[in-house]
Every structure is written in C-alpha cells, then in structure tokens.
C-alpha cells in the first residue's frame, strides 16, 4: 500500500511539474500550446538514454533533459512569434502529430513502440535516491521559480503581452525575447519532468507522449485555473486520482475505466468553460479573457 501511494505521489509530482510549466506558457504568456507532451517526451528520451549509455546520475539526467527540451523549444517558439490564437493552436497540434510519428519511427533513439527498457535506478553522486524525493524537490523548486517569476518584472511583462500585445510593445518590451524565454522555460520544465518520469518508471515508450497526454496536461491546467500558482497542481492531483478512484467503483467494468475517465474530464472541461472559465482556483475577473 505504501508503495502504491508513493508511486501515485511521484506521478502527481511529475504531472504537477508538467501542469505548472505549461501554465507559465498558457496562463502567463498566453501561448496556448497543445504540444507539451512533446517536450515531456524529449526530456524522457534524453534522460533515459543518458542513464542507459553514460551514467544513471539523476541531476545530470535532469540537466541534459532540460537542455534538450529547452533547446528544441525553438520549434514551438517560432510559430508563437509568428501567429496567435487559433493559428498557434493549429501549429502546436501539427508539431504534436509530427513528433508522435518521429518518436514512433526513430527506433534507434526512442525504441519506437517497444520503448526503452531497463533504465537504471537514479543515483546522486553514486548513492541511490528515491524518485519521490527527487520529484517533490523539483516540483517545489519549479513552483518557487514560477512564483518568483510571476511577482517579478518578467511575469508582469508576460501578462502585459497576454492581455495587450501592442500596448506592451509600445512600452518598449521586447516581445519576441519574452515569449521565447517563457516557452523555453516551460519546455525545459517539461523536459525535467520527462527525465524524472523515465527514471521513475524505468521504461518509456511513445504512448506516454501522444496528443492525449498533451490534452490531459492542458485539462489539468484548465481545471485547476490558468494563471494561478496552485491551480495546475490541484488539477494534476484531481485528474490523476480520477482513474485511481474510478477503479474502486464496482459498477464500472475495468475495461471501460479509460473511457469513463476521458468522458469525465471532457465533460469537466466543457462545463467549466461554460460556467467557470477561470478554473476552480481562478479569479473570475481576470479569467474572462483567458
């Protein structure tokens, strides 16, 4: 039972990181990416390959994952600088679909559908550490960074861009740099989550990095509340405990749990958007233009 709960807590922390970093792009910068799982995947593959081929050092894996994901975030930053709104959502959807195919086909790097197996347990300086502790530390650090950023001038710049791009530009803000930086931070964070995920599961394959996963992460942010500090974390915990909770209900056949779960969070997304667009923890006044 403790092992079960520890596993659930680790996953909650990992998805908390994913939701919190996506929130930086969606909630603060107004960049509505539906491709977060791509960078989660990049981080996971980078971390896994490093642990398999070089050394299973957790810190190194996370740094490399963050660098790979942050570097390739340019793929997402370029359309974000060119277009807004529906066009950007379409571009990120396109990126997600291309990446899914690449992850499946680049078998040398990703193992394809079979995935990468036997990823060694994480070490720090030669001592094995539990992934729960690692994930919680990373989550706290990322929440702290988000909080500091949101309070500081960079956070204000991002919010200004989100609410009135031309006005922010007229005030002399470097919009392109701010957007690219926000995207890089969000994607690097997703990369860290990916490395943790790979080390925790000791197995990764493409099924964890599909459009469905991106939508799940997006739903976490939306349900919890975009642009808030704790909202995405609440969303992650709620949506992750959903399948666990559902499996205790006797009248749902086990084969249908996935479908019931998707129906529930689909319905939750729609109803929230109609009645409470700012999310559970969101501020009704600022949420209207999200």
């Amino acid at each position, binding site marked *: 039972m403790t092992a079960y709960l520890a596993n659930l807590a680790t996953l909650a922390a990992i998805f908390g990181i994913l939701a919190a970093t996506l929130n930086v792009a*969606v909630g603060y910068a107004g960049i*509505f990416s539906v491709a977060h799982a791509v960078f989660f995947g990049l981080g996971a593959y980078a971390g896994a390959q490093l642990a398999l081929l070089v050394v299973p050092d957790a810190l190194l894996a996370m740094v490399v994952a963050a660098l790979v994901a942050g570097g390739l975030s340019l793929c997402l930053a*370029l*359309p974000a600088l*060119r*277009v*807004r*709104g*529906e*066009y*950007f*959502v*379409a*571009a990120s*959807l*396109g*990126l997600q*679909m*291309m990446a899914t*195919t*690449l992850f*499946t*086909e680049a078998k040398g790097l990703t193992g394809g559908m079979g995935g990468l197996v036997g990823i060694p347990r994480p070490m720090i300086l030669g001592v094995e550490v539990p992934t729960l502790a690692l994930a919680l530390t990373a989550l706290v650090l990322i929440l702290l960074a988000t909080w500091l950023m949101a309070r500081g001038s960079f956070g204000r710049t991002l919010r200004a861009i989100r609410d009135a791009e031309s006005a922010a530009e007229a005030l002399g803000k470097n919009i392109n740099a701010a957007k690219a930086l926000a995207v890089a931070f969000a994607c690097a964070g997703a990369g860290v989550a990916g490395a943790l995920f790979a080390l925790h599961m000791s197995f990764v394959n493409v099924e964890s990095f599909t459009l469905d996963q991106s*939508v799940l992460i*997006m*739903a976490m942010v*939306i349900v919890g509340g975009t642009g808030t500090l704790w909202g995405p974390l609440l969303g992650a915990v709620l949506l992750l405990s959903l399948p666990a909770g559902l499996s205790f209900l006797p009248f749902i056949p086990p084969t*249908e749990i996935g*479908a*019931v779960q*998707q*129906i529930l*969070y*689909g*319905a*939750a*997304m*729609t*109803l929230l*958007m*109609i009645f409470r*667009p700012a999310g559970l923890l969101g501020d009704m006044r600022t949420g*209207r*233009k*999200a």
Partner: protein
Amino acid sequence: MLFLQLLLGGLQTGALYALTACGFALIFGATKVFHFAHGASFTLAGYLFLLLWNNGHPAWLGVLAAIAVATGFGVAMERFVYRPIQRHEGGFFTVFVAAFGVSLVVQNLVGMWAGRGFVVADSSLSRATEVLPEVFLAPVFWVSLAVAAVLFLALGIFLTRHPAGVALRALSQNSDLIRAYGLSSHRLSLLAFALGSALAAPAAVLTAITTGMNEAVGHHVMLISMAATIVGGVGSLKGAALAGLSLGVAESVVLNFADPQWAEAASFVVLFGFILFRPSGLFGHAVAR
C-alpha cells in the same frame, strides 16, 4: 499502375475531406468559432448510418438520419456551448477547450456504446471492379466525386443567389454591419452551424461505406479539416475545399514513396510550414494577428 490506383483512391478521400473541411471553413469564416467538435458531427452521422444500415433499414433513411444528427449536433453546440461562452466574452481558447471536451465525450461514448475498432457498412457500392489493367474502382468512387461536386455547386449557388446565403457571407466579413442592417447574427450563426455540420454527414456516410469508421475517426477528420482550412486560407471555402482535396491526394500518393505511418505526418508538415511561412494560406487575405 500502383501510382494511378493510389491517385484515384486519394481523389476519393480528398473529395470527402473537402466536404468536411468546407463545412468547418464555413462555420469558422461566418462565426469565427473554432469548431473543434466538427469531427464529432462526422462520427455521430457515420455511426447512426451504420446502425440503421446494419439493422436492415433502407439507405435513404440512414442518410437522412445522418444529416439530421449532424445538423442537430452542430446547432446544439452553437446554442448550448458556444453562445453561453461568447456571452461572457470568453476568448478563443475557452471555446477551443470546451469543444475539445465535447469531442472527447462523444468519442468515448461512441466507443463504449458501439465498441472500439473498425466497422464497415457492407454495400454493393464498395465492390471494386477492374477498370484498367491492375486498377480497381468501386462505384462508390464515382458516387463520392458526384456527391462532392453537386454539394459544392449547390452551396455556391446558395451563397451567391439566396438572400440567406448572401447574409452569411456578409456575416463573415462584418458582423456589426449585419446587425446595423437589422439581420440577426444569432440566427445566421445557427444557419452556418447547420449547413457546415450537414456537409460532414454525406462524407461520413461515404466513409462508412468505403473504409469504415472507428470511434476515433472524428479526431483525424477534425485535424484534416482544420489543416485544410488554414492551408486554404481562412475565409475562403474554395481554398478549404481545394486544400482538403490535395491533402487527401497527398496522403494517398505518399504511400508510393514512404511507409503508411508517414502519411498523416506529411499533412502536418505541410500545415506547419504554411503557418510559419504563409499564415494567410493559399487564397486567404493577410491576417492581422
């Protein structure tokens, strides 16, 4: 001869993509709603047709029911989801997320109710005969092309000749002016949703006859319609239809050179390229975004 076979197959798929893409573009152009649940209209129409057909009902009943359910779904989405969101000035992302939620619900309900995996309506229309050496064609090929051509012709006449069609085009250009002339933009939005969703139904029925449906097909159709609308140029129905046709052909012809798993990715490479280098699409006006 494989190339010719693939090309003909692509034309058929492309004609059906063109219909759904045109429906999506009509809705997006007139109401500015990114109707991401458009694929759900397609799924519902296809599955209702399959249900009626496999229970021995005549085809015309199935087709009418499919059109009715697609139209009804589109109108209900506008009335009960998009209108309330727009009333409190929700941004486009609010609309997108709500529509995505609905399409997830529809996909999984259909999957639970009708089972997962492919179902095909067995019909004599899909029996292929050899027309040229090593080239096989089924009657459904000609039916698809004819249906698409007739519907596009009818839609073109409606949009240019009928007062309601002219008003729809006016709505897509300037919705404030529409109200100044005393026309109800709400009623016109409902019309756009009804027409656009109805266009998905024939495509769904023909898909159900040829390749069959699975519960996730709406997803793919939606992504293709969206890609075609953007590549064709937002606001241009002709562009969306043409782009839908080319995406269908490209998806099929690419099989001549590459493995099938690259087919879908190829469409999205095209979409990504267009968004980066020519966001206004083939026939669109420059977008101020």
